[in-house]
């Protein structure tokens, strides 16, 4: 556990529709580092991000972000905190009423009284960083999935926040865009000291950019460490996940009754 953690999760327990998502989860996100959260699908990685931002609340436990316990914050205080957090949605979530430029400018227009010229410069600077300055006047419906993700990334970093949460940032990106996004995450981290949390499945990309990886399964952190060594740490969890094996501690099948019985064969387990 880290002394200087920007996010400190302690004893987080969340049960949704009778299914335990987090079971007394403890986790620290070190300040100024790039941390990746990995794990099988449906294990609650996006849900964890939503807990960190206060979009969801757990049944027990504390989540401190920059010293503030998120579940106990009022709506006003939560909004103040969110102004310091950037969030990249899995499906980009661009505002379809606005073009690309206005999507990136949206947080600036809502929270600042900056002159138009300065807003324009900041927005073009962020769009240039994601390689889409030329697409400033396109509508979100004219963008490919990868382009929409890069616009959403430009919007997430428009305030140079202290913490950026990326939900599946590498999905749908071509190799050039992927490298550009990796470079951008690294640059933001190095030059501005921005803490980044990535939820991702792509080990190769994570190894290039992350300082620390948490592997989550069955509601707990089952492995953690440096990305270069984690895959070969000898644990059955990492062996199964990074090796892509069906058999292992993580069940491939969603919990179900006996297969033979479900198919109507005699002699199935009752």
């Amino acid at each position, binding site marked *: 556990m880290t002394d200087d953690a920007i996010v400190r999760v302690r004893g987080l327990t969340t049960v949704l529709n009778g299914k335990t998502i987090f079971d007394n989860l403890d986790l620290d996100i070190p300040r100024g580092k790039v941390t990746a959260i990995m794990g099988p699908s449906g294990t609650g990685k996006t849900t964890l991000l939503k807990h960190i*931002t206060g*979009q969801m609340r757990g049944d027990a436990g504390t989540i401190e972000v920059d010293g503030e316990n998120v579940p106990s914050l009022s709506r006003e205080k939560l*909004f*103040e905190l*969110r*102004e310091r*957090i950037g*969030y990249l*949605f899995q*499906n980009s*979530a*661009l*505002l*379809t009423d606005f073009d690309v430029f206005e999507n990136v400018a*949206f*947080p600036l227009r*809502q*929270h600042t009284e900056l002159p138009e010229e300065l807003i324009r410069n900041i927005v073009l600077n962020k769009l240039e960083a994601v390689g889409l300055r030329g697409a400033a006047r396109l509508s979100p419906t004219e963008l490919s999935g990868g382009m929409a993700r890069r616009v959403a990334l430009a*919007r997430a970093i428009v305030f140079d926040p202290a913490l950026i949460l990326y939900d599946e940032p590498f999905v749908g990106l071509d190799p050039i865009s992927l490298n550009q996004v990796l470079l951008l995450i690294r640059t933001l981290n190095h030059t501005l000291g921005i803490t980044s949390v990535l939820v991702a499945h792509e080990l190769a990309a994570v190894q290039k950019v992350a300082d620390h990886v948490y592997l989550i399964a069955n509601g707990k952190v089952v492995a953690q460490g440096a990305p270069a060594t984690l895959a070969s740490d000898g644990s059955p969890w990492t062996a199964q996940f990074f090796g892509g094996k069906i058999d292992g501690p993580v069940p491939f099948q969603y919990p179900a009754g006996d297969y033979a019985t479900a198919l109507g064969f005699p002699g199935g387990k009752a």
Partner: protein
Amino acid sequence: MTTARNDNVVVRSLTQIGACGLFLLTILAAIPRSFRHGRETVRQIWFVGAMSLTIVMTCGLFVGMVLGLQLYDVLSIFGGTSATGTVVAIAIYRELGPVVTALLFAGRAGTSVTAEIGLMRATDQLDAMEMMAVDPIAYVIAPRFLAGVVALPLLAVVFCAMGVFGGHLVGVTWLGIDNGTFWSNMTATVDVHKDIIDGVLLKSFAFGIVVSLIAVFQGYTTPPTSEGVAYATTRTVVASSIAILALDFVLTSFLI
């Protein structure tokens, strides 16, 4: 079994009405904050108001024309065709104007507001606003609610004007009622307070609150699926229509 199902329907309906009432309080609390998004409110007034003008004007014209035709036919039995203008005006001002405009508004603007907000919910746009520390109630919901409350009375006035014009077109231009009689009987009988302010403006203001509330509530609470958005849009029309006609009876019983 049947009783249990009925109970569930009753409980579900009451829960929805209660949730809708609480949502109204949330919107009212957010309205002062929504004033900083004044441009968005104006844009929505244009969208739900000005863009509904064509259907409202056309329907108002035909309602007035058919009313003129029917009334002329009935009143001619009693030799009272000179009262056609009066009855057309009173029927339109007191009932048809506000009620039909509200029904048209629910179908034209209410559904599009529900579908728009529902799709924003389904595509995480409302969550994205929350994450950018922008309150979607103040930025998205309150402007659309206010726009409906402002636009509906104005549309009702336009509908009434077109309706009277339609009645005049049929009664005077086509069927030959004396122009002076048509207008003088109407102006002598129509009461500004009872027929215009209470009849048109007050009723359509109340309908504007109800239809806009139902539209934004259904959109905001829709399940984030294409089926959910479709159901929410349908519920907006059904619930608005019932609410308009029921509220019309209640208001009329107090105003008459």
